[in-house]
């Protein structure tokens, strides 16, 4: 009897939504367990790290990893799984591109810590206590892991074979990705699996409603407009990022009358999702006069946070430049 493929699932810096999404494949999961052995899944199974360490290199068929790399433990674990796995899959936005926690890369870690423990109004911290890497209490050293300077997508730490997009990936996308992995007919390394080759517009029910020329004369923030639910949101001035975002979700947000915020990330031929998105948005501004262009851009309070909401950590720059040394 042939051994069933061995699958490992692991989470780094994620919110748990990816794990919930995995569970959301509900009844299909029983089918899955007939097809594979799950050898490692911290949320569901007892394990010891040594168990993984003791496996021969390459003995896990595929590891699905969600979450980005925020602390040193994350880094250590993904390196371990890389060594033990034939295939590593970055599952979900955080793992693939850092996700929303990657927005922290616009600050240094000291700023994050200082705000949380010293500055927020609810904190009462007269002695200016800050969580420390090492605290000695009664002769015992209490250690906390240190944050890395930046949150990193896992492919900045290990080599990644495939990517499953989404914050989180939907059940359908997850299932398709698993089927691809089990099909034996593997796509080229680096491919995105489970989702569409095309941008969201391809599957958006409102794509047909676009006029010949899509141009922006105004920008509206979602709370400033009650959009016509039968017309493309972008053409109504809402910053729908569907044109730049990989399809596969079935246009869930648009169906709830909210613009796409880009959680399925860039398409194959795009290097930097945020820059590409900025490019397409800027391109369709229907003004020639610099002041009018500036005025329109003024209506968009935080272009970096908006365009890089899920992909900052994987972007060309990856985060904020360090300050100039004077």
């Amino acid at each position, binding site marked *: 009897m042939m051994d069933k493929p061995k699958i490992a699932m692991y989470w780094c810096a994620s919110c748990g939504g990816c794990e919930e999404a995995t569970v959301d494949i509900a009844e299909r999961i029983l089918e899955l367990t007939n097809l594979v052995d799950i050898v490692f899944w911290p949320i569901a199974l007892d394990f010891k790290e040594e168990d993984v360490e003791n496996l021969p290199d390459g003995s896990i068929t595929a590891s699905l990893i969600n979450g980005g790399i925020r602390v040193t433990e994350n880094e250590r674990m993904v390196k371990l799984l890389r060594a033990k796995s034939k295939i590593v899959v970055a599952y979900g936005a955080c793992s693939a591109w850092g996700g929303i926690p990657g927005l922290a890369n616009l600050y240094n870690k000291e700023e994050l810590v200082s705000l949380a423990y010293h500055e927020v109004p609810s904190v009462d911290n007269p002695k200016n206590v800050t969580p420390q890497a090492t605290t000695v209490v009664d002769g015992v050293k209490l250690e906390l892991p240190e944050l890395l300077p930046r949150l990193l997508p896992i492919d900045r730490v290990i080599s990644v074979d495939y990517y499953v997009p989404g914050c989180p990936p939907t059940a359908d996308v997850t299932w398709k990705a698993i089927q691809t992995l089990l099909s034996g007919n593997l796509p080229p390394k680096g491919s995105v699996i489970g989702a569409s080759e095309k941008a969201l517009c391809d599957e958006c029910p409102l794509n047909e409603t*676009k006029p010949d020329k899509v141009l922006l004369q105004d920008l509206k923030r979602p709370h400033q407009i009650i959009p016509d639910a039968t017309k493309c949101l972008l053409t109504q001035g809402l910053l729908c990022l569907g044109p730049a975002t990989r399809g596969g979700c079935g246009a869930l947000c648009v169906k709830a009358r909210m613009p796409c915020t880009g959680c399925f990330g860039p398409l194959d031929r795009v*290097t930097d999702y945020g820059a590409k998105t900025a490019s397409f948005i800027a391109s369709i501004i229907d003004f020639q006069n610099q002041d009018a262009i500036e005025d329109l851009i003024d209506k968009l309070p935080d272009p970096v946070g908006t365009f890089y909401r899920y992909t900052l950590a994987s972007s060309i720059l990856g985060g904020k430049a360090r300050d100039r040394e004077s």
Partner: protein
Amino acid sequence: MIQEPRVGVYICHCGMNIAGTINVREVVEYCKRLPHVVDANEYIFMCSAPGQNLIKDSVNRCNLNRVVVAACSPTMHEATFRSSIREAGLNPYLLEMVNIREHSAWVHSHEKRRATEKTKDLLRMAVAKAVLLEPLEDLRVEVQPTALVLGGGAAGIRASLDLAERGYKVRLIEKLPTIGGKAARLGRVAHGDRTGIELLKPLMDSAASNQNILLHVNSELVGLDGSVGYFKARVKRSPRFVNERCTLCDKCVQVCPVEVPNEYEFGLSKRKAIYLPFSGARPHLMAIDPAACNKCGECLKVCEPNAIELDQQGEEAEVVAGAIVLATGYEPYDPPPGEFGYKRSDKVLTLFQLERLLDPAGPTKGELKLNGSRPRSLAFIMCVGSLGTTANAHPYCSRMCCASSLKNMIRIKELYPDTEIYAIYKHIRTYGRHDEKLYEQASANLVKFVIFEKTPSVAVTPDGLIVGVHDATIQEDLAIPVDAVVLAVGMSPTKDLDKVRAVVKVGCSPEGFLREAHPKLRPVEAPADGILLAGSVTSPKNMLESMMAGSASAAKVSALFANGEVHVEPIIAQVTEEFCSGCAICIAMCPYGAISRKKVGEKRVAEVDSALCKACGACVAACPSGAMQQSGFKDTQLMAQIAAISERRGG
């Protein structure tokens, strides 16, 4: 099929032009160490026959599949080296040129070391891009040797005749019932004794009778598809209500009860609802103005040849053409009522109306008479509607109005020497070989010139007209009573130009004229290939200039037709359908209308008309999914070039 890239790098000394600054030897050695470079060499003049042979031999000897040449500007020798590698059996687009003469050696001869370092960077970047180059094939489009000329004025007629004389078919589209345009309505033209119609009539007759020219009067262009070599135009003809049996007996005109202002006389006289636009109109037939005609049927009763068909219908026809000449002309600046007394007094007239008065074929048979009386004193106010003289005026100078005004002043002095004439002007622009004589002649004829800086005024009083002007020379306010005022109006873009632009995609200047591909180097070409711009559709022109533009555009069209096919450099945008979501962002990027969304099943994808694409790449930069790419300037190619800007990535 993925070929392992094998790059050869060839660096030209250009005598001492390059080698005098750049250490070519060092750069060659550097290039040999770059990834995928299998050969690097140098030569004193790479563009010479031995230089080119060196490249060709290397291609074969080293089995190269990419070539980088570092020499002068590609505008000089890109074509040269493309042919060289083609002769060596490589696709010509597998060449990348680096301009190290103009962009490095010549400008950094004071910093030789750093110029050499920069040159290495440029080569490293070029090699990085070259590795990703792909073979491309020129695009060819067969040309339909028929020209569509839009506008039957001086420029359009000239263009049509020139083309017809060379044996090409012409469809001449004119929206009025006659060709001739504004030029046919000029009075005596400067520097000669003949009137506009006298000059133009032979050309109009030739155009009307030429076998190669098909006149479409009462017609407009309402649709256009396709691109250079093969346009499909939709031409809509409005009914004329009079057929070819018309003998111009004039009986219908006599019985017609409806009178309207005669636009051919600029409203100086009236015409009937059935009318001949002017003597010499072509085609030489009556026409019925549907806006004026009340269909009373009186004309039918008197028309012996049964030439009148009141139930005639309009029709639309498709015309296939290889090129289009836009010669839709201009219209005179029309001052708003009250500007300088215009339309407040019948003694205030425009320069165009004056032309008609002085035309022997005009409403007064060439006599200067206003309401039956001859003005003894006249003031010409110049620059009306031009140079920002009034709030409504254009910012530009229409040029022809000075000469035209002076010509008319001289004519009036000839006819009526006792007439007192004031020329109230902002600038006198009598440019060119002949026109300054007009100024001298007018001065000699005692025309009184008054220069203004502040816009003058015209008061309409019960006693007559009083021109108020601050004479900028003597710094005095003058009040000049005159019998009549002539407003030397300039030229405006036609009001219909937007309708034309909606059909033919041509850009327009801030002034509202059509924009040329280049104002100096390509003055009669639109940016889109196969579309020519003749006459005052691009800027104010006099008759001579319009004729020149007409001939020039015909020459451009002839060159196109003579070649029989169009070659397009294949660096155009292309969609990979499997990556295209049909988001439509690209469509608004294209100034040439080359991109559309087609339906594939239930879904949309973008489609590029390769003949319309001009290779700017704006849609590529905008394409949010990377589905749109520009051959020769793909994202991957340019990103590789950029990434090699410093050694750590590219080298």
